[in-house]
């Protein structure tokens, strides 16, 4: 699949934004994080900013962005429509929580309720994003039981690493949040390795034989219907060399998982401000690594239409 920059950025940014929103909504609302104006302002600004930037970026992928409002209508059948509805609906409790926690400096009662509803909305939205990909049968690497948990784990991972950087930066570092960020990063790494292992061994039942209905033997493409790349090949025929994909997998692992895990482990022993610097570095490296991971997620996904063009 063609890794469109707008969609690669969208899934990375909104995942991190919803992860951070869920954590701030829960921990802030219940009073585990004090209602400090600048902490809340930057934290909620970052969460909602990442979400809004991601959503805006995804509309850049549309052929007719001025009609984007129509996408809220088909929630009964379409995961993309459900994602649209859930993402916009989540803004309501998120903004209520932001007003109460950041501007009024309160937690508990209705602020806690708004924070918890916003956290639930964030989880639901990330699930709908994951299901858009997990429901696509023509792409075997996505239509697997690894896809939906991956979206949730990566949102929790990037969100908790951001939350830790934020708290450390405000000298409010919490061992529990730091430990959660480290464990989530290790969980994300393990899940990605398991996904790659599964995909590399995948035996796809759809073949050039079933695609053409020709039984037995081999089916070899000898002539394409066109000489230049068409929409199908540009959008779904993206190929990546095996050596490049191996190198990018190493880069993604170093930036998204290994590097942040080492930095976060160091934070346990570092005094302020070194611990804060290491926490922020971990968050920045992880987001960069997740962009590489998400680019690969598209580049390595193979669509069945490529079988018609003799690509297996």
């Amino acid at each position, binding site marked *: 699949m063609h890794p469109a920059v707008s969609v690669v950025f969208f899934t990375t940014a909104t995942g991190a934004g919803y992860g951070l929103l869920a954590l701030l909504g829960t921990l802030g609302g219940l009073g585990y994080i004090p209602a400090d104006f600048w902490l809340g302002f930057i934290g909620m600004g970052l969460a909602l900013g990442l979400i809004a930037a991601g959503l805006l970026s995804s509309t850049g992928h549309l052929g007719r962005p001025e009609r984007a409002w129509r996408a809220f209508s*088909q929630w009964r059948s*379409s*995961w993309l429509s459900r994602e649209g509805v859930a993402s916009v609906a989540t803004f309501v409790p998120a903004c209520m929580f932001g007003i109460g926690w950041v501007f009024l400096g309160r937690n508990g009662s209705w602020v806690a309720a708004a924070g918890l509803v916003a956290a639930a909305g964030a989880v639901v939205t990330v699930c709908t994003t994951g299901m858009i990909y997990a429901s*696509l*049968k023509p792409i075997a690497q996505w239509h697997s039981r690894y896809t939906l948990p991956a979206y949730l784990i990566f949102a929790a991972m990037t969100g908790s690493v951001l939350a830790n950087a934020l708290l450390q930066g405000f000298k409010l570092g919490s061992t529990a949040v730091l430990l959660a960020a480290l464990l989530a990063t290790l969980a994300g790494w393990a899940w990605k390795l398991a996904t790659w292992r599964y995909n590399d061994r995948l035996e796809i039942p*759809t073949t050039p034989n*079933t695609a053409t209905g020709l039984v037995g033997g081999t089916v070899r493409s000898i002539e394409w219907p066109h000489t230049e790349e068409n929409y199908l090949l540009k959008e779904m025929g993206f190929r990546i060399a095996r050596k490049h994909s191996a190198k990018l997998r190493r880069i993604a692992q170093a930036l998204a998982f290994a590097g942040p895990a080492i930095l976060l482990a160091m934070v346990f022993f570092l005094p302020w401000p070194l611990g804060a610097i290491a926490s922020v570095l971990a968050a920045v490296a992880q987001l960069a690594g997740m962009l590489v991971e998400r680019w690969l997620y598209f580049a390595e996904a193979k669509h*069945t239409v490529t079988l018609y063009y003799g690509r297996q």
Partner: protein
Amino acid sequence: MTCLPARTEKKLGLVIDLDTCVGCQACVTACKEWNTGGHMAPLTDIDPYGGHVDGVWFNRVHSYEHTTELGGRTVNFPRSCLHCEQPACVTVCPTGASYKRASDGIVLVDEDKCIGCKLCSWACPYGAREFDTDVGVMKKCTLCVDRIYNDNLAVEDRVPACVAACPTSARHFGDLGDPASAISQLVEERGGVALMPELGYKPTNRYLPPRARSERAAKVDAPALEPIRAEGGFLGWIDRMLSN
């Protein structure tokens, strides 16, 4: 609404005979000609006379070499929308632009509602949908919905343009939901198959596999030519002189 109808009154579709298709591309050009002025018009061409030609087509003909233990053969393979009974391209549509008609099962796009998110083309395993980068909306085969019910055309012309154009009658149109229809009988008789049945899209269109090899075909190699002997005598002398 992008929810699918529980059942459709008819299942209009195509049956394509891979035995008789000669890969002449007449269906491809007839489709382009009709539809660039039809329901989903225009079928935009990008840079048609330049080095990187691109554009929207509803019907593309591939050529394959199918090799089995009985030998190899060339199979020309027209590929277009199969008007599936379970079209995920419709259910993934967030705007309701894509729909499957309850009356005849044709899958269509309402271009005025399409936002060009391209998700339907990702959801189609067959590559039936092509995005028009010029207009910013998705386009697809309409089964010539503007021909098959068109009272202004002669009755025999009320078939999709690709079917009307095929010089070898490799393309057939009809109601595949009616077991008594001529097209269903043809599928029954020739063992027509659905493409990628394992994905569960339940395509309406069927492909008739190439017929088994006939016993009547020549099976023996032609006898080897006799080795050329040097000609003797006067003619041989002339041959040698002229060959020098």
